[in-house]
């Protein structure tokens, strides 16, 4: 399989030709992601990416038609990774699942009460484990080329939708009044979640996911109205 991909007839190339295209593509995308994280989208060129991967430019062009193509592939890959995390959160799972059976309300209620904290923990742990991926969400839109910017905007919209699901579930579980302004709640909630993610990105030693989750979870507990326990 690897043999078909090699180009042994090209002389003087360092180990550049030995990787299958799929792996080479991943390697180049990893380099591009690192460059974006370090210096922004402006730092990504075919030349810079090739150099970062220790290959010559033609090798990079074997994998991508050009910078735009590479950036599109990069944001596609990172978007898929972030989506997978969203889908793996409790809210993401329950949004995808069938509606709960009406005859299991007690367990369902308890699960839902812990759910926001669990979702936050999942999100912040993912941020800590793949900081470069999540830093994309915090990149100032003005510095991002058009197409990736729209994709990242879509991903932020998905985060907002996830938080809406989360908040609605929380509001139901706690019997919050229906006239509570969901739009305002979700915007403020998003700001808090994004702040937590940003702290994990900026200073994971001082603000580890565990600390942020515990601190914000404690506020949620304090906010739990006494009537919610049957």
């Amino acid at each position: 399989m690897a043999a078909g991909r090699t180009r042994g007839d090209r002389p003087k190339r360092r180990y550049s030709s030995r990787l299958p295209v799929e792996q080479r593509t991943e390697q180049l995308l990893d380099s591009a992601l690192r460059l974006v994280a370090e210096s922004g989208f402006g730092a990504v060129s075919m030349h810079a990416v090739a150099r970062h991967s220790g290959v010559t430019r033609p090798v990079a062009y074997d994998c991508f038609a050009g910078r735009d193509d590479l950036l599109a592939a990069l944001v596609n890959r990172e978007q898929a990774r972030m989506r997978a995390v969203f889908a793996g959160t409790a809210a993401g799972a329950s949004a995808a699942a069938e509606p709960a059976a009406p005859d299991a309300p007690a367990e369902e209620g308890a699960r839902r009460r812990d759910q926001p904290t669990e979702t936050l923990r999942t999100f912040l742990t993912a941020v800590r484990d793949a900081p470069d991926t999540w830093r994309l969400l915090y990149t100032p839109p003005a510095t991002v080329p058009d197409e990736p910017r729209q994709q990242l905007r879509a991903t932020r919209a998905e985060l907002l939708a996830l938080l809406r699901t989360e908040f609605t579930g929380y509001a139901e579980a706690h019997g919050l009044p229906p006239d509570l302004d969901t739009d305002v709640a979700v915007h403020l909630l998003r700001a808090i979640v994004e702040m937590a993610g940003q702290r994990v990105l900026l200073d994971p030693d001082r603000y580890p996911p565990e600390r942020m989750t515990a601190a914000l979870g404690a506020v949620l507990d304090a906010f739990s109205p006494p009537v919610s326990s049957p």
Partner: protein
Amino acid sequence: MSDPESGSPARRRLAPADRRESLLDRALELVAESGAAAVTMQAVARAAGVARPVVYDFFADRTALLDALLAREETRALADVLSVAPTALTGADLGDSVTRALDAFLTLVLRRPTTWRVLLSPTSALPTEVGVRIEQGREKIAGVVESSIRAVLGGRCAGLDTEVVALAVIAAGEAAARLVLAAPEQYPPARLTRFTRTLFGALGLTAGPTHPAGR
């Protein structure tokens, strides 16, 4: 103080301190209209109706000018926020405290919309030094907010990570300010204060700082 030692070709004779303020005012307007990228020495000179060397008399370069602008706006904003903190302490209960502080804050934001729009814009859109300065301003505000939280909660903040809670309060406050600035008709301050009142009311947190903790 009003003796200009430089032979600057200023159109109107302004005392240096006044000239500096007026240049910063023009720069702030430029930021408000077209973003920080629109602030160049040339653009500020043109907006102020002076020759470019006049701007250079006061600021070494564009970054120095933006930095001075941010320093001034941040000082104003910080003074604003500090004046809000005592408001929180006058509330009849926790929900009332939060709502009063939010109301006072949003009133100040709308009184200086341009200042706040600049301070709340994504920081890396501005030169790095400026971004760092804004972060330092946030740190200061975080300290003030944290002590207000401790004062309002009293014994109830035992076991709470008040540093992180302060960061969350600031994040929520900034989000509220962004909503009010971006869509004042859709999100008037009254809509946001109604939200906190309803939320805290529903959570049974209107009983005041002496209300016993959850457990």
